């Protein structure tokens, strides 16, 4: 029995203080972990996975050969996923996409892609999570539910921790939740504002108008009484350090990037009065790393195409949902994500019409439809490496259990080598 320090690779919090008790290759106990962490570490058992071609068991070599031939024959291939693997593998995926002149996209395409668009339009005043812990006296959760999606966020970063300049912890903070329903996060907040679905943009614009001292002749907006919004603006202006944390309740509802633009603009304007910042709550543990790696290697974070030999960026054209929905790609290489479980049906159903390869550390829903399935070792469980937390802080992934499988990086490299042998 031994105790190993680990980083939890199951959400964008990337808690790096996990202690795992291991015996005979099995996880006995997960200390410091949340419910997600405990469940996924304890039930990690990839040993019975084998490579498959069209549902039939095969060898790794044959799977690699077939994957290579699928990609080689494709005229407009897509490399997709990237968000649940290490930066080292993401680098290799970019190299492959560039070599084949294909498309490459991450799960940002259906989570915080709109956040990127808004950021590219108005900027983004932000900070690392420790700034919230050490300074924030006003925390606003908007369209996100960390109690269920990022279970330790509240205890470790944003609500209860005692900080350098906030020795009182929870008592030193006012917590506000804005959401369409009374989520568990709303229940641990001081103030809950229930907003009508798809009305976020309007509410942000009213907040901005109130901030500028405009007199509005309305009683309520988006189902929230104006007096409640006036009270919120006053709290925002008079706090010492405020933060908005937002999720897919903002990015994937009507208005999308315009919602985020409005939110960022509000935060930006608040800096005339006090310190106010904003952080997107990224879900997949290394989707932030995918953004980062793609950006430093190509200049752009997602929705990329290499057909012309150089990176082209065009969300709406090279975003995966659009490429699939318009039936433009003719093959796909999917790693570190499960698009058939998470993309709109209109898009994912097209995958069944084309050959595609899936690299995954478990038999995902997509893997069960894949032309070629190659099991890989799980980054952060069986592979060390680098991942980026939701706030852009790089964190070391650790190796906890051995794996019989190759890494994403090794599989991608194997395919790339075969392609180069042409």
């Amino acid at each position, binding site marked *: 029995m031994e105790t190993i320090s680990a*980083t939890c690779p199951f959400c964008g919090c990337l808690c790096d203080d996990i202690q795992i008790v291991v015996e005979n290759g099995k996880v006995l106990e997960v200390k410091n972990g949340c419910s997600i962490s405990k469940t996924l570490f304890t039930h990690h058992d990839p040993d019975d996975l084998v490579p498959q071609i069209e549902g039939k068991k095969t060898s790794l070599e044959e799977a690699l050969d077939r994957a290579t031939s699928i990609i080689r024959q494709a005229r407009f291939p897509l490399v997709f996923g990237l968000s649940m693997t290490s930066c080292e593998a993401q680098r290799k995926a970019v190299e492959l996409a560039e070599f084949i002149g294909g498309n490459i996209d991450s799960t940002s395409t259906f989570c915080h892609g709109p956040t990127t668009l808004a950021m590219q339009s108005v900027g983004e005043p*932000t900070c690392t*999570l*420790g700034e919230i812990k050490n300074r924030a006296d006003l925390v606003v959760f908007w369209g996100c539910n960390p109690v269920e999606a990022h279970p330790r966020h509240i205890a470790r970063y944003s609500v209860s921790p005692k900080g350098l300049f906030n020795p009182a912890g929870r008592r030193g903070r006012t917590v506000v939740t804005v959401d369409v329903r009374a989520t568990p996060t709303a229940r641990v907040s001081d103030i809950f504002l229930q907003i009508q679905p798809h009305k976020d943009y309007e509410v942000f614009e009213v907040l901005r108008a109130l901030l500028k001292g405009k007199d509005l002749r309305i009683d309520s907006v988006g189902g929230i009484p104006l007096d409640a919004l006036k009270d919120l603006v006053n709290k925002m202006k008079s706090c010492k*350090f405020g933060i908005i944390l937002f999720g897919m309740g903002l990015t994937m509802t009507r208005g999308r990037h315009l919602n985020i633009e409005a939110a960022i603009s509000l935060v930006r304007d608040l800096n005339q009065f006090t310190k106010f910042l904003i952080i997107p709550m990224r879900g997949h543990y290394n989707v932030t790393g995918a953004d980062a790696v793609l950006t430093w290697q190509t200049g752009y974070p997602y929705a990329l195409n290499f057909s012309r030999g150089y990176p082209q960026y065009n969300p709406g054209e090279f975003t995966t949902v659009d490429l699939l929905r318009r039936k433009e790609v003719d093959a796909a290489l999917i790693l570190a994500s499960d698009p058939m479980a998470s993309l709109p049906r209109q898009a994912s159903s097209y995958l069944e019409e084309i050959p595609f390869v899936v690299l995954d550390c478990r038999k995902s829903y997509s893997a069960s439809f894949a032309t070629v399935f190659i099991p890989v070792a799980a980054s952060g469980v069986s592979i060390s490496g680098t991942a980026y937390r939701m706030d852009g802080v790089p964190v070391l992934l650790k190796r906890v259990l051995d794996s019989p499988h190759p890494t994403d990086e090794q599989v991608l490299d194997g395919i790339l080598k075969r392609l180069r042998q042409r």
Partner: protein
Amino acid sequence: MIRITRGKVYDPINGINGKELDIWVDGGKIVQVGDAPDLVAERIIDAEGCIVMPGGIDIHSHIAGGKVNLGRKLRPEDHRKDVVPRTETTRSGVGHSIPSTFVTGYRYAQMGYTMVMEAAMPPLTAKHTHEELHDIPIIDKGSYTLMGNNHFILKFIEKGEIEKVKSFISWLLKTTKGYTIKIVNPCGVESWKWGKNVENIDQQALDYAVTPRQLISILSQIADELGLPHSIHLHCNNIGVPGNYETTIESMKAAGTNRVHVTHAQFNSYGGKGWADIHSKAREVVEYVNEHSNVTFDAGQIVFGDTTTMTADGPWQYRLYLLSGNKWINADVEMETSAGIVPYTFRKKSLVNAVQWAIGLELMLLAEDPWRAFMTTDHPNGGPFTFYPQIIKLLMSRAAREEIIAQLPRRALERISLPQITREYSLYEIAIITRAAPSKLLGLHQKGHLGVGADADIAIYRENPDVEKVFSSVQYLLKDGEVVVENGIVLKSTSGRILYVDPGEEGDIEEYIREEFEKFYTVTLDGYGVPENYLERGECLSCG
């Protein structure tokens, strides 16, 4: 073995000024200079009609890390006008003001540069900086670790525990694989965490009874005591603010007789009470530099055109957002620093921009000792590094300067002294400010010259009456003795070294700070640093 023959050699460290000399290269090093009848070369590079210099060294450039990458992400419009397709030997990417990592390496190499120092590395995200440096090919690199607003440093200074400051700095350099102490708007950035700033170098940080003057004095002393190869690297308070030249001079004074490098001095040499009467105080700043041999500076020259400003100086970047109305990124880093990013266009027709343009050149032309003056644009703040050849031309040609001066607003002319300056740099002096002096400033012994035993990082430029053309693209670039660029084309994408220091004076500071660190940071202390395996070709320099 490679023999470079018939080129005119400029090697100021060895006092060679344009003499035709053979240079013999083997095993990545220069093995012989001059005639060598006993040596047999496998390859002869005929450098007739060429200038031979050591590879260029950029002492201050923002090329890698969290802030640079946020800048890239912010500006698709910047990339789209400058795309770089892949070739058989090189990766694709984008250029202009914030090039992608591969392109950063290629473009520096194509200009004959073989070493570049990343100017601002936050310790918490140092792994990110090193991941990007890993992906910048060919050139050698190093990074300055941000320390001017670090909680532990401010706290130890406040309590008068100077030995602890020293141990902490030693530990932090080793832990982050940094090269020296970078100080950005000391105490001001800490106050910015509450949306405030400091107005002068005697104003305390909001939460710490420490002034910028104290911090500069103590950290410059520590850099000397630790024997760091490079001095403290100081971005002064009040950057970009009219009247700030007094702060700059006071900051240099604060270092006393310790070594101090004042970076992008152009942004810190303004007179006047406001934007309406801003004028050059380059002469006053340079006067202090001329009289004090412990002081060095780099220009931070601006280039007219569109660029992306990015510094760890959060309050300044916010101010620039308010001035320009352009999109604004702020990125505060817990316990230690901040960053801001704002796109900006320098315009010839803008009075303020015209004055800024002149100040950078004035600083370089009024500096009496070229060994203590460095050509930078503070890439990409003043403009992209790819404009260095243009700046070299401006330094070497009064006529080239006059051509631009004629296009500036007339009102600018009474606020600057550039039109009266007749000095023109020689090629030898250009070799000093871009090669020899940077090597000395960084305390390197194997770089910046072409003597026997030096790293064979050699730039060979084709002569041309237009000096901008000369320096835009090398005829040959040798890196570690290999020809990696020929006729401006990258033949081979090698990986460069990462240089860092370990002064070895940390004592038991890591255990001393452990409890407090884990209480207030959001990562564990053991996961904080940069492991060796991030450095593909790491090289630890000795101190003292």
